[in-house]
């Protein structure tokens, strides 16, 4: 029963804090994400603190594995289940923008001041028509993880890790000759999209055209990048042909000398290596002859699906909370993802973290080199992606040099793109 006092209090509070009505009725928002175990706990912890600070909002988090979240989110939207914020992998952002009820975070710029906290290059992935449709929260950057014990055993200088791909190949050959353990591998991701883009970008090219509807791997730069990838497997024979799961497990088990994968693996790699081998982490190698490193980020963004009204407002408040420097930095520390805000080291907690956990230094050093993940601006890119994935398999199998295989595959991929509706 309402007493007169609470009625008065509510009436007084209403004009000041708009969502005060929510104290009587909580607004519930649903967040889809792919963080489990340690990261999941850290994320839930942040949610609990947000709820404590905003008692009128209840956040329900739904975990889906990273392999299935794209489909799950799609299915949830299709079934009209409540979704307010959902994880979308970088390359799918524009697809979701076109094909789902996603809305821009800054549709009402007054409610999106918090966007200014983010590094502008990190917001590029979600930019369209001057609006921001996707906000990073789980970004990784590719790092050169290496097994320092194997490096030392091969008589190499552990304190001068390779800076260029030529040096990586040199190290891999030496280690392989000495220990018999395979030299190096690089994560490729689903449909090999990420690895292919990384190779092309770092060599100065692109996978998908700026317009997002054509494959442009046949540029001289991209071609050189792909040729390097083939050389690792075929000419130098330092890259064992396997998949991401096998490479990760092998590296963490001490059966692969160097592995290029997301900085998101950092915490886990440190834990796993403990007692097994000494872990080293260095920046992504430069492409031969280039002085600038260009690495696309990997990982997930949040997109906004709330209907207008209290749910959208609550979602934006949650995003604002996530982008507070101390919260964002804490999330980065606990999860292993890249810090996302401008000048993350303003925060003393972050500073002492970097000092006590030196592995994260190359990650922070690499942040300015991070470029936006290329995205499809085409509703039907599966066939093209598939053709390119097949091309990479063929390259690794040594079916022909890149100069011969790539243009043919690009032609077929583009034919499929122009045909598909």
């Amino acid at each position, binding site marked *: 029963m309402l007493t007169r006092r609470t009625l008065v209090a509510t009436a007084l509070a209403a004009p000041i804090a708009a969502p005060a009505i929510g104290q009587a009725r909580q607004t519930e928002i649903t967040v889809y994400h792919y963080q489990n175990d340690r990261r999941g706990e850290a994320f839930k912890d942040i949610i609990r603190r947000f709820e404590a600070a905003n008692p009128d909002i209840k956040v329900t988090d739904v975990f889906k594995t990273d392999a299935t979240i794209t489909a799950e989110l*799609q299915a949830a939207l299709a079934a009209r289940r409540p979704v307010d914020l959902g994880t979308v992998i970088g390359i799918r952002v524009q697809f979701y923008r076109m094909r789902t009820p996603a809305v821009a975070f800054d549709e009402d710029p007054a409610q999106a001041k918090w966007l200014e906290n983010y590094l502008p290059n990190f917001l590029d992935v979600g930019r369209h028509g001057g609006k921001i449709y996707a906000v990073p929260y789980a970004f990784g950057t590719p790092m050169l993880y290496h097994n320092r014990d194997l490096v030392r055993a091969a008589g190499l200088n552990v304190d001068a890790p390779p800076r260029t791909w030529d040096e990586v190949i040199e190290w891999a050959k030496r280690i392989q000759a000495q220990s018999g353990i395979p030299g190096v591998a690089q994560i490729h991701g689903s*449909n090999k999209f990420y690895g292919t883009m990384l190779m092309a970008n770092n060599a100065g090219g692109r996978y998908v055209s700026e317009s997002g509807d054509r494959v442009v791997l046949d540029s001289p730069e991209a071609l050189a990048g792909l040729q390097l990838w083939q050389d690792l497997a075929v000419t130098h024979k330092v890259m064992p*042909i*396997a998949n991401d799961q096998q490479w990760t*497990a092998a590296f963490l088990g001490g059966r692969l000398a160097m592995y290029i994968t997301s900085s998101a693996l950092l915490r886990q790699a440190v834990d796993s290596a403990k007692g097994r081998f000494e872990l080293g982490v260095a920046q992504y190698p430069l492409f031969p002859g280039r002085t600038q490193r260009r690495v696309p980020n990997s990982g997930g963004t949040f997109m906004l699906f709330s209907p207008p009204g209290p749910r959208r407002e609550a979602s934006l408040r949650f995003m604002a909370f996530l982008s507070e420097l101390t919260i964002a930095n804490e999330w980065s520390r606990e999860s292993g993802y890249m810090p996302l805000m401008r000048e993350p080291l303003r925060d003393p907690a972050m500073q002492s973290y970097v000092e006590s956990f030196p592995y994260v230094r190359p990650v922070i050093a690499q942040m300015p080199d991070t470029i936006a993940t290329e995205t499809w601006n085409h509703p039907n890119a*599966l*066939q093209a992606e*598939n*053709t390119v994935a*097949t091309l990479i398999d063929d390259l690794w199998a040594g079916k022909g040099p890149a100069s011969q295989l790539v243009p043919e595959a690009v032609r077929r991929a583009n034919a499929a793109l122009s045909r598909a509706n």
Partner: protein
Amino acid sequence: MTALAQGDLAGLGSLAPRRQRFEAAPYLYLAPLILLLGIFTFWPLLHTAYLSVTSWNLNPGVPVRYVGIANYEDVIDSDLFSAALWNTVVTILVSIPLKVLLPIPFAVFIWSMGSRGEIYRTVLFLPTMISFVAVSVAWLWILSPLGGYLDLVLSSVGIKLPPLLTRAETALGTIIGISTWKIFGFHVLLFLAGLTRIPHRLIDAMRIDGASDGVILRRLIWPMLGPTTLFVLISTVIFTMQQVFTPIDMLTKGGPSNATTNLFYVTYQYTFMNFSVGQGAAATVLLFVFLMIVALVKFRLFDRFVHYR
């Protein structure tokens, strides 16, 4: 569908003349099944057929667009689909001797041992009880060329394990091998069940007439196994191929170079990886047509070789 039913019903013999009086009982017994099938199998199937001529991604905000046969053209033209079709045909052709015919001699041998064969039967059947997720993970570990168990053992004698699952030449064979490992014992059990229905007195009678084991196998056992063989054939194509989805998804994702995708997986790739529901639905309908053709061919062969002994 009708052809399939006729093939099966042909074995029933003639039906008794139709009753005059209407009887509700059979319909009541059937009601739960028919209701459930209608709601959860046939209606969704019709829905899928409808979606195959539209362009839609299932989202409420996006209007459904009628596109005619465009989806079918796209799917049929694609490298992905032709690879899937080829792999599916190869898988079926390899699976018939491996999963349908090979279990028969094992079943006959175990059957001939009487109760002493139980241990073999039990062991062979074990993999059937283990989920395909578990089987896939186990083989992923054993076959990993980087620190997998087989690699560890082989490298201690100086042999390098080839990357079976990531090389186009060997990937499909490896997937078929893993699925055979899983399903073989189940088929042996089905044939054993068929064998136990063979009356002993018939065998004894043939033996008294001086028939050799070979003759008994050919003239009595093989024909008596007919219904079981038909059943195993059906289950091999549908049951097994559908289950193979799990190892494909977990181990190869259809690659490398599309070497392991199949008509089931392609449907998933279109619908869930690209959300082209229309194309996924078109691929689904094509898959359905393919299954019907396979079934027809099988019943033809089956009628010829088994029924008329």
